[in-house]
């Protein structure tokens, strides 16, 4: 297609997607987006039909998170668009680049309560980085270009473009918009000098790594900094995979369900070097007791995060790929490194639990150790999500997909679908729980439709486990609506979607079953029956300081 050629708005949408290297779109058609689906038909852009718009949104999120590219999803007006909202909110909280294109009723009937009309632009304001409703076909192409640019620039996020049906049908002259030349990357040298002064004075520095490191493409620079300086490190849920898992001084996840060594070390640190993290409440515990002795150097591309919850001594908004190599330690931190190593040893996870029951942490550790180099784990939300974060290890952040900020049950399976599409050669495992799994169970059809070889590891305790855990600990064992013992037969359910599987309940079956799952050429459901008395430990109780973690032993006493 030549510049200046007259085409329909719908054809222009597909052309802009192709121009941005989009190979797969996830979506669901409906009345107000039919012209776009008509233009898609036979085009170079592939579409994967999901079976609910939320599933399509999460597939686009999984595609984006596992590949670093911008994910794209389609939905029709009204209920199609409202079904996307949860996935947009999830992408907003975890800063995921997404472009969502929704059909809208035709311009002349907007505001008349037309069939399947909803003010989607209005609904999008709180759950997108930016959003547009296209009001003229002349603006359509430039708006879509802008949407892709905004989604990926700076701190990434979801962008929604709502396109009325008449604009999809209108003829327009296609012109590639002129694009602004990106600013030369800069480095705030004064702030770097201030940071290095603090680092030079620190006796107990700690690197607090968030999801921003992976999103900035700065994993290599981060690992180089750790290797060069020997600075001990901890990671957030989204930061897992950034630090090499067996690096000396790496203590794993901090926060509510973090490793005790990570939390104690942060509480003792005299300097926090925060890279692409935002002092989330699940990380800090009681905020005014978090890292009480530490000065803070806060590195984040988003200046609004600096001082939002903790005032930093030094704030830097530049590209982490430039900032991290410019930082250094000059003081000998040997005694601190030794102390951190001692904490790491003292609080190392233990898997030698007696008995014949399956201990989920041990199973997940075994899974991590069995996964090939190119693999993705996509989590759902709940107890199993925390066990994955605690006990699995990842080669890079793109290998671990978890609904971190929004905590959306139902995320795992559709996000795994997107990851498998983005990385067809990878072993993709969705780790889910019996509560979460049922929240987007319709996406099993999507797996069947595309014959995706993804694996589902379903940890089933017949409970809404994390809520049950809190009821047990903080609501006097009043188990309100958390019993799921009427779950369906999951193997029969999977079989209906041509997904074979196996069910296990004994520790002695784990190794063989994991092998079955990982060597299966197609999709596979491994149903793992676990005891509902297993909880996630340790735990920072709500409102408590990270210094006051409780462990299983203390509860039993």
């Amino acid at each position, binding site marked *: 297609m030549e510049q200046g050629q007259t085409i329909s708005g719908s054809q222009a949408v597909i052309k802009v997607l192709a121009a941005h290297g989009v190979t797969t779109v996830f979506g669901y058609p409906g009345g107000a987006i039919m012209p776009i689906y008509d233009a898609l038909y036979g085009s170079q852009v592939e579409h994967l039909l999901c079976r609910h718009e939320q599933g399509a949104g999460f597939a686009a999120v999984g595609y984006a998170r596992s590949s670093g590219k911008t994910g794209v999803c389609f939905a029709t007006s009204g209920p199609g668009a409202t079904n996307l909202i949860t996935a947009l909110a999830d992408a907003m909280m975890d800063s995921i680049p997404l472009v969502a294109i929704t059909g809208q009723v035709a311009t002349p009937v907007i505001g008349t309560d037309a069939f399947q009309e909803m003010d989607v*632009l*209005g609904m999008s*304001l*709180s759950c997108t*980085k*930016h959003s547009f*409703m296209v*009001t003229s076909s002349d603006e359509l192409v430039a708006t879509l270009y802008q949407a892709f640019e*905004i989604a990926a620039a700076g701190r990434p996020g979801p962008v929604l473009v709502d396109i009325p049906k008449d604009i999809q049908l209108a003829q327009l002259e296609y012109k590639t918009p002129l694009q602004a030349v990106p600013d030369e990357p800069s480095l705030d040298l004064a702030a770097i000098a201030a940071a290095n002064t603090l680092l030079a004075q620190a006796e107990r520095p700690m690197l607090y790594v968030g999801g921003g490191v992976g999103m900035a493409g700065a994993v290599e620079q981060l690992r180089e900094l750790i290797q060069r300086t020997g600075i001990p490190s901890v990671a957030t849920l989204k930061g897992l995979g950034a630090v090499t898992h067996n690096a000396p001084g790496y203590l794993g996840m901090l926060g509510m369900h973090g490793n005790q060594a990570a939390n104690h070390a942060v509480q003792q640190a005299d300097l926090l070097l925060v890279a692409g993290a935002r002092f989330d409440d699940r990380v800090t515990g009681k905020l005014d007791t978090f890292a009480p002795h530490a000065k803070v150097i806060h590195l984040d591309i*988003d*200046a*609004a995060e600096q*001082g*939002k919850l903790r005032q930093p001594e030094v704030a830097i908004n530049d590209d982490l790929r430039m900032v991290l190599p410019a930082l250094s330690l000059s003081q000998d931190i040997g005694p601190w490194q030794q102390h951190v190593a001692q904490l790491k040893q003292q609080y190392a996870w233990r898997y030698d639990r007696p008995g014949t029951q399956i201990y989920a942490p041990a199973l997940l550790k075994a899974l991590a150790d069995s996964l090939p180099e190119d693999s993705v784990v996509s989590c759902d939300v709940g107890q199993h999500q925390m066990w994955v974060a605690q006990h699995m290890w990842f080669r890079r952040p793109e290998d671990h997909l978890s609904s971190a900020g929004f905590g959306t049950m139902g995320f795992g399976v559709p996000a795994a679908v997107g990851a498998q599409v983005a990385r067809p050669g990878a072993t993709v495992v969705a780790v889910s729980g019996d509560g979460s799994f049922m929240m987007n169970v319709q996406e099993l059809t999507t797996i069947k439709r595309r014959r995706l070889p993804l694996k589902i590891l379903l940890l089933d305790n017949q409970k809404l486990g994390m809520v049950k855990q809190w009821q047990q600990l903080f609501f006097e064992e009043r188990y309100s609506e958390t019993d799921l013992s009427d779950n369906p037969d999951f193997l029969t359910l999977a079989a209906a979607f041509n997904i074979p599987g196996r069910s296990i309940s004994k520790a002695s079956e784990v190794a063989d079953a994991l092998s079955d799952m990982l060597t299966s050429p197609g999709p596979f459901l491994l149903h793992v029956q676990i005891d509902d008395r297993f909880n996630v430990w340790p735990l920072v109780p709500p409102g408590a300081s990270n210094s006051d973690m409780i462990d299983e032993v203390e509860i039993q006493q």
Partner: protein
Amino acid sequence: MIHHLVLTLEQRPEVLERVLRVTRHRGFRVCDMRMSQQEDQRLLLDMAVDSDKAIELLSRQLDKLIDVTTCVVQGYQPIARTING
């Protein structure tokens, strides 16, 4: 404490909703406001907001909005005096 903000905004139908939504959600109450169109078609929004929170917690969030061109914290006097005076 009352803070006075002056914003220039892109001319979009929903831009005022965006600014007011962020203002509410981040814990600030609008006490007074006036909006006018400038010669370059952009909108000038003069706004007084009340909160115990530091004004930077709002101004930095407003600054991030794509359609907010500039966001300047003017001071701490009530806006009514400024824009009516």
